[in-house]
């Protein structure tokens, strides 16, 4: 063993590595509370006290290991210093993947760091200290949850969770895959929690506290599994930390400070029954930290025929010494006395297991290197996992989320099947990339990247939108091993150039600074901060242009609290396309609308969009005057149907079934004259025939046609005289005389069962069943659903008729309705502005049914696609979001039932089951299962209150589909077993 005691370094500059850049070497030895070696051994991190903040430093490991590299001036020793914690950093821990560094401190915060590469712009120095950051680590997430200093942290195996413990007496388990989601808050300790450690197979997490207990928590339900207090009864709260550790084979948990017979020990707690009959004795003062080597070691001794496997553990103590133990030996492998001049505070083994580092209150770090002969040969990862499997059973998935053991063989089978199927619809927890950090949805452009933009506030101050420096794309996010080749150290430049490279663009806009509590500026709504982001011109406009912009300020009239907008006249030079914005806010307590002003885009003549045929156009000045008294009376005014050019239209009629060829309906207004007026000609051609050919049939109408719909059975023609003509597509015969509408038609719809819907200009809706010759809906008003806020206009986006003859209407308000004749009422089928839907995270759970299949079979999806715009932000995992998702899915199910959309009902039901399963919402899941299972007693068949089918699906069949989904969450395996057993029993009875 080689102890490189002279490689002792101090966090603020080092005894041997004194940095000459900047010249401000601090000889104050501020305590280093934590140390952790990166899994690849290239770096190590220290955390502790900085001058006026907490401090994290990432160091290059190579100079510590090799003296030759240490003496090479070109190789940086310090890679990055982060002073972001407001107070002392008590713990730093690398994730197993090495991508993330977690830090926790006295400021109650946990920060997750990842490496980032910035474009050269911007300083890489630690501002004001003269130190150079060779690497840039940025805070990816901040975890706020503790109410007191965070003292210790631990990543769970496979980086699924991060456990943090605090002086607030709690341990918080964070979802490391979905930061900052909290998985559990472990409450039970009645004193400061000073250490936390995961069981290497992820079944338990242990914590040690000043309340003289060590507690073991189950990860299956986050409940306390055991409290161990006996070895700690005599302990006083004399240590800053109590970092306990679990052996890599999972067999032993070793505590920090315990007492046995009046002497300080490190208590060994055996996994088997949490027995506590062994301990590590010898330290003269309290044990502060224990850290197991992550390797299981192996050595062949001559006396034993079989190589023996054991673990290796380092113990640090307030007695300033360090001991290293092998579980195969009764005595310590080595003890280094007086390693530091103050308490040891943290220990870390390298991934190879041959290097050990320790840090101390005295502000220094020690490095110890072992040889393989001394420690033993580490098992390979495969050997280690085989050992784990042999000891703890097979773990189903490498994903550490599934850390439960399968209890029934059937479930194992189900799960294996699921894995084989590789269903495109996998539960969301499996689709997530294992180590990806949450991608916060942001606008890609955060600000101008080539200039700063200056505007003025109403009181004459400047407001600057700074130039955004985009980070270079992360290079795989995993820090590269820091080679001895060394990278170029950036030079600190305090250049005295007279001009900055930043282009300053001055604008004469009057803006309100986005500040609260300022002397004369009022807060404006937060959205303005976003909208204030200026449009980036690809060409920076010369400042002289601004002189041509004539702007007048809007003066807030503070006296009476009202906003007086003075006339604002602007002439913008045509070449400049800037979005201009004026917003003002006045007077205490009033929020004012933001006045937005933007130049309309310069439109060229070619911009006019062609309207599709038979789409209603907003009424022009001509027409309609003689037809109906549209303007008078209460109610709605909808644009009437109108032919595109007033002359005629062509409607394609698809064959319906394969036997009939497609046809073409042609309508021509004023096609021929008669002595009493012009006639309208209606002709149906089989597809492929030109207008000159012989039509299948033709007919004439005495009034101009305003619109038409047709399918393979029926042609519906609305005339301008507010009549509706129905003709059979095959023959042209009339099943009914013309129907009279209460006012001209605005919308028409038709379904395959020869039901016709018409919406009139006055907003009345009728549905007729042509075959049965009766009305399904009579002149129902659209007013209840189309009442607009004053000043706004509600328009119909789409109108259709379900196969059952229920009219569907989707509106520009983002809502969609169905009229139920049975209930004589409008039903809300979708509401895109509903906060419930917006905060629902259902998207991950809905199968991609709609994308792969014809939307014709999915009326609900079809309807909602009209109104739902944009993708809702993915839920950040609060409980309200889960509730919203469940509520929304249940709404969708009800809508599917109303629409009688079987396919969608099925898909939403499975989605709901999937979601409930993932969230572990057992009660609701049981409700669903109970209904699907029905009564289980022997008279079940005669039960009146329970239908065996729902929406045309056998309930039992549905349950059979849902159960495997439930099986995907091992925490719910009891439900799975319970229902599958009962289901099997019922089918046997049959």
């Amino acid at each position: 063993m080689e102890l490189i005691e002279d490689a002792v370094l101090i966090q603020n500059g080092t005894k041997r590595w004194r940095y000459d850049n900047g010249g401000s070497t601090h000889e104050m030895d501020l305590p280093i509370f934590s140390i952790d070696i990166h899994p690849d051994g290239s770096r190590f991190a220290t955390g502790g006290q900085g001058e006026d903040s907490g401090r994290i430093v990432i160091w290059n490991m190579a100079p510590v290991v090799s003296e030759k590299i240490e003496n090479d001036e070109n190789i940086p020793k310090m890679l990055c210093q982060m002073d972001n914690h407001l107070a002392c950093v008590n713990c730093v821990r690398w994730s197993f993947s090495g991508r993330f560094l977690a830090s926790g401190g006295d400021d109650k915060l946990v920060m997750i760091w990842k490496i980032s590469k910035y474009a050269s712009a911007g300083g890489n120095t630690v501002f004001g200290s003269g130190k150079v950051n060779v690497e840039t680590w940025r805070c990816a997430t901040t975890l706020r949850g503790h109410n007191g200093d965070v003292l210790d942290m631990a990543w769970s195996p496979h980086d699924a969770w991060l456990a943090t413990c605090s002086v607030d007496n709690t341990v918080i388990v964070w979802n490391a895959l979905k930061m900052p989601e909290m998985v559990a808050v472990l409450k039970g300790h009645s004193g400061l929690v000073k250490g936390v450690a995961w069981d290497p197979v992820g079944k338990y997490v242990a914590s040690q506290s000043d309340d003289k207990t060590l507690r073991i928590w189950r990860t299956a339900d986050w409940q306390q599994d055991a409290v161990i207090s006996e070895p700690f009864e005599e302990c006083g709260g004399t240590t800053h930390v109590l970092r306990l550790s679990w052996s890599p084979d999972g067999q032993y948990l070793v505590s920090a400070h315990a007492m046995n017979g009046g002497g300080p020990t490190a208590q060994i707690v055996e996994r088997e029954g949490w027995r506590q009959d062994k301990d590590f004795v010898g330290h003269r003062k309290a044990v502060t930290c224990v850290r197991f080597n992550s390797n299981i070691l192996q050595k062949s001794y001559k006396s034993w025929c079989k190589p023996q496997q054991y673990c290796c553990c380092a113990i640090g103590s307030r007695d300033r010494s360090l001991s290293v133990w092998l579980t195969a030996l009764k005595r310590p492998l080595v003890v280094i006395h007086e390693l530091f001049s103050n308490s040891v505070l943290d220990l870390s083994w390298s991934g190879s297991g041959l290097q050990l580092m320790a840090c101390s209150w005295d502000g220094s770090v020690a490095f110890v290197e072992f040889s393989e002969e001394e420690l033993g040969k580490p098992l390979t990862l495969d050997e280690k996992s085989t050992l784990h499997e042999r000891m703890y059973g097979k773990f189903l998935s490498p994903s550490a989320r599934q850390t439960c053991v399968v209890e029934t063989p059937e479930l194992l089978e189900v799960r294996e099947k699921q894995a084989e199927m590789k269903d495109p619809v996998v539960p969301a927890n499996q689709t997530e990339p294992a180590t990806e950090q949450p991608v916060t949805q942001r606008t890609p452009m955060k600000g101008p990247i080539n200039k700063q933009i200056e505007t003025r506030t109403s009181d004459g101050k400047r407001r600057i939108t700074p130039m955004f420096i985009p980070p270079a794309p992360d290079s795989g996010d995993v820090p590269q091993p820091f080679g001895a080749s060394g990278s170029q150290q950036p030079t600190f430049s305090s250049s005295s150039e007279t001009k900055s490279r930043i282009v300053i663009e001055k604008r004469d806009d009057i803006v309100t600074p986005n500040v609260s509590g300022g002397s004369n500026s009022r807060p404006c709504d937060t959205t303005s901060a976003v909208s204030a982001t200026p449009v980036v011109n690809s060409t920076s406009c010369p400042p002289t242009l601004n002189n041509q912009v004539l702007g007048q300020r809007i003066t807030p009239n503070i006296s009476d609290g009202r906003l007086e907008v003075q006339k604002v006249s602007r002439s913008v030079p045509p070449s400049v396309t800037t979005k201009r914005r004026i917003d003002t806010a006045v007077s205490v307590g009033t929020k004012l609308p933001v006045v937005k002003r933007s130049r309309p885009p310069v439109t060229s003549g070619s911009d006019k969009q062609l309207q599709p045929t038979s789409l209603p156009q907003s009424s022009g000045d001509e027409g309609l005057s003689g037809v109906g008294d549209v303007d008078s009376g209460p109610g709605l005014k909808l644009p009437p149907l109108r032919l595109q050019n007033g002359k005629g239209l062509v409607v394609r009629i698809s064959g319906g079934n394969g036997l009939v060829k497609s046809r073409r309906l042609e309508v021509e207004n004023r096609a021929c004259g008669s002595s009493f007026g012009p006639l309208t000609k209606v002709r149906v051609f089989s597809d492929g025939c030109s207008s000159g050919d012989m039509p299948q049939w033709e007919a004439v109408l005495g009034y101009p046609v305003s619109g038409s719909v047709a399918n393979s059975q029926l042609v519906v023609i609305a005339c301008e005289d507010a009549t509706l003509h129905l003709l059979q597509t095959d023959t042209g015969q009339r099943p009914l005389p013309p129907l009279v509408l209460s006012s001209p038609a605005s919308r028409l719809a038709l379904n395959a069962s020869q039901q016709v819907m018409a919406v009139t200009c006055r907003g009345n809706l009728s549905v007729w069943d042509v075959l049965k010759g009766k009305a399904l809906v009579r002149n129902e008003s659209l007013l209840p659903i189309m009442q607009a806020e004053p000043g706004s206009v509600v328009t119909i986006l789409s109108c259709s008729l379900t196969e059952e003859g229920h009219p569907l209407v989707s509106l520009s308000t983002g809502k969609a309705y169905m009229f139920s004749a049975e209930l004589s009422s409008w039903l809300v089928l979708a509401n895109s502005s509903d906060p419930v839907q917006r905060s629902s995270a259902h998207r991950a759970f809905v199968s991609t049914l709609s994308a792969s299949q014809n939307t014709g079979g999915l009326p609900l999806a079809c309807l909602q696609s009209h109104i739902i715009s944009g993708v809702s932000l993915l839920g950040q995992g609060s409980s309200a979001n889960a509730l919203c998702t469940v509520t929304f899915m249940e709404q969708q199910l009800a809508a599917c039932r109303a629409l009688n959309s079987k396919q969608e009902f099925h898909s939403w039901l499975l989605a709901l089951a999937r979601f409930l399963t993932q969230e572990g919402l057992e009660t609701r899941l049981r409700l669903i299962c109970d209904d699907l299972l029905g009564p289980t007693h022997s008279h079940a068949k005669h039960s009146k209150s329970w239908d065996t089918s729902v929406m045309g699906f056998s309930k039992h069949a549905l349950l059979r589909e849902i159960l495997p989904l439930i099986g995907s969450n091992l925490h719910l395996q009891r439900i799975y077993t319970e229902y599958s057993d009962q289901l099997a029993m019922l089918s046997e009875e049959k």
Partner: protein
Amino acid sequence: MAKVQVMNVVVLDNPSAFLNPFQFEITFECLEDLQEDLEWRIIYVGSAESEAFDQVLDTVYVGPVPQGRHMFVFQADPPDPAKIPIADVVGVTVVLLTCSYRGQEFIRVGYYVNNDYGDPELRETQPPSAPQFDKLQRNILATNPRVTRFKVDWDDNPNKHNKISSSSSQLDVSTTSMDEPIKANLLNSSTNDSIVSMEL
């Protein structure tokens, strides 16, 4: 946790004529999108003797500030010569660059400034009795910024915000008291005037 970290400040146009504007090119990093604008301020300490001679050269709002790294140039007019005590015109003083969020100052960067005549004759042999500002040279000791950081409430405790904004007058008091350490520094170094001039 400080949401905004100043990464670097480059003093532009330095040394320069006394009557030229101050220019600082500031690079800062923001850890999370800020709800409100930052408020940057340049304060020229007219006299080490009294705060009464402090001149706020300019105040700018900087925003919106989304998460990420940003850069801007803060330019401010030179101090009003009429407001500087004649005895303090020539010699070492301080210029402060401060930044506040929600009215709370969280960083203060102090630079020593040496004002002296460019002309050796004016400097050494016969300093004019009345200051000739057009001949004065200003030299900012750009390599040695004194950075002081203060803990403030970033949007961590939303319920506290109202309290803070309503008691802005109190904050002003505390802001001025923060001047003390750097003033004290300044006094030490200006009495012992060899320190700064040597480094210059």
